[in-house]
């Protein structure tokens, strides 16, 4: 138990320590793109910075966070010590080594290919090897989630696995499958060329493989946040989860429909025909459903909490919610940002309509609303929830976690 806590803490701290420089780079990039004066005005540093920012935010930060959160769930929701903790540390070490290996060449300006790689553009092989290692490290976590899931099932035959464990296992499986696209692009197409063993890359195939990863990865980022929506938030708000079944359906829908869905990033590409693009559009419509179901269940759960706390009338329950709880405030804010982010996505995925916004700042804004708005805010709220339990110390300066002194309660 003691050691399980250290394991989770190490992952969470690594995630947030990587997040810190990445968010600073993001701020500088915003200055570069805006009419405001930027302290350093150099396009080459800008491209290196975008590469570092994207690589950390897309691969390193969410991977470490999901691993740490997963171990915490396995221990606390299943109520048993983590099986295979040694292997968890091996995975952690591999991912950490990979992170350093990837970021050093980026900082040296030798891998400014952006986190989306864009072959035949090439960077230092260490960059790709490092990111592959981050993902390989996370495969240990995937295996451990399955092992612990099954161990609990064996001890509790016939009982449904707690929703949080159910969801984090779905998240792990989703990641295990979806990461294969980028991993095979790196291992079989990019690395052989950077090492000089091969001299050509089929850019169309590379883009297709990468897209297998590049949309479902968003659900890999989102599922930990959704777990907080479904399991941590109702308690923090003082209510109940509206429906456990809807939660499970949501996570299964994610797992099933996210699999090939990323090829909708290629609507404006010349290597796929109209029929295939249409199929991708339809699949993406399917995967919008779990998010729309979540919005309902979470709003309903918040309403229950508000009414239990004495809120009356059509909107009175909103005022009655404990807005000074980090989790409640974070979920409230994240739903506000997830809304426009998600509806923007409905335009992106709408087949020919994609031409209006393809490669414009609209897309950047779309995924930042999802990632910054929903994912990061809720990751922070989860940390506020977990850290006191993991360190067994109360949160110091608790009120600052909400950004203001006293809430509506």
């Amino acid at each position, binding site marked *: 138990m003691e050691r399980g806590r250290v394991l989770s803490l190490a992952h969470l701290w690594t995630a947030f320590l990587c997040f810190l420089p990445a968010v600073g780079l993001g701020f500088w990039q915003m200055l570069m793109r805006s009419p405001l004066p930027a302290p350093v005005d150099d*396009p*080459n540093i800008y*491209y290196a910075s975008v590469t570092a920012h994207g690589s950390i935010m897309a691969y390193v930060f969410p991977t470490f966070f999901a691993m740490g959160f997963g171990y915490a*769930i396995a221990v*606390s*929701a299943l109520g048993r010590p983590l099986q295979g903790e040694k292997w968890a540390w091996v995975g952690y070490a591999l991912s950490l080594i990979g992170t350093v290996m990837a970021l050093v060449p980026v900082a040296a300006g030798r891998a*400014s290919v*952006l986190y989306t790689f*864009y072959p*035949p*553009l090439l960077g230092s092989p260490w960059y790709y090897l490092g990111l592959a290692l981050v993902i390989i490290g996370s495969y240990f976590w995937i295996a451990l989630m399955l092992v612990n899931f099954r161990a609990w099932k064996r001890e509790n035959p016939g009982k449904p696995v*707690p*929703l*949080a464990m159910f969801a984090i296992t779905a998240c792990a499986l989703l990641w295990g499958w979806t990461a294969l696209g980028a991993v095979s692009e790196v291992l079989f197409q990019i690395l052989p060329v950077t090492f000089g063993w091969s001299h050509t890359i089929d*850019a*169309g195939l590379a883009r297709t493989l990468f897209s297998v990863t590049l949309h479902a990865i968003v659900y890999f980022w989102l599922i930990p946040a959704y*777990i907080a929506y*479904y*399991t*941590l938030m*109702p*308690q923090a708000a003082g*209510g*109940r*989860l*509206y*429906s456990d079944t*809807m939660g499970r359906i949501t996570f299964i829908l994610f797992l099933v429909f996210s699999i090939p869905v990323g090829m909708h990033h*290629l*609507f*404006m*590409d*010349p*290597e*796929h*025909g*109209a029929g295939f*693009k249409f199929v991708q*559009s*339809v699949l993406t*419509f399917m995967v*919008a*459903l779990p998010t*729309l*179901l979540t919005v*309902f*269940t979470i709003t*309903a*759960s918040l309403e229950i909490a508000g009414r239990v706390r004495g809120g009356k009338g059509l909107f009175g329950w909103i005022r009655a919610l404990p807005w000074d709880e980090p989790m409640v405030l974070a979920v409230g804010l994240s739903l506000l940002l997830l809304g426009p982010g998600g509806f923007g996505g*409905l335009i992106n995925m*709408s*087949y*020919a309509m*994609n*031409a209006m916004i*393809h*490669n*414009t700042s609209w897309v950047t804004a779309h995924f930042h609303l999802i990632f910054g708005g929903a994912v990061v805010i809720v990751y922070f709220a989860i940390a506020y929830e977990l850290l006191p*339990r*993991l360190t067994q110390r109360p949160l110091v300066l608790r009120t600052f976690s909400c950004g203001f002194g006293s809430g509506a309660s």
Partner: protein
Amino acid sequence: MASQFNNVGAAGLIPETVIVKTERRWFLVMAAMLGVMLAVIVLTGIGQMLHPLSDVETINPATLHLQGEFVESNLGSAVEPDGSITVRIIAEQYMFVPQCVVLPASTPVRFRLTSADVVHGFFVQSTNTNAMVVPGYITNVRTSFERPGTYQMPCDEFCGFGHHAMAARVVVVPRDQFKNLRPDERMNCGTR
């Protein structure tokens, strides 16, 4: 921290039948919303031919300059027998060739682009003409310009350290000012 993730359902607070009923209603409304959007895509696809680019054509990027339709003498605007325009452009680090193309307004235009090196983006500002240019493939985009004027045409996909400087222009002139080209004649801003 034993039960922090283990929620009791809302069953004690709200009757099970109410939960099932409201959930089903929401599900149907959302499914209907997505259904309507999908129907719009299908109907505009059939009725107005609104599709993303969809001709998959391949080409050897290593021999672009030696043979085939992307040799230098064939780049720029060409007039087809039916009066429509075909524009052939090569995208390469860090320029488009030709750097400036001339087109008549209100005329069907077909852009044919390919890349000599890495992935580039083809985007004509303030229009929906927007596509990827991938080495080994030909990007085939059909459009037409109603308003005469000069349109910026930046590369909108990161293509290396010089990416921010990679841009061309599209000059759209009124139909009567567009030079009458012979079938084998090609035109860009320089040869106008």
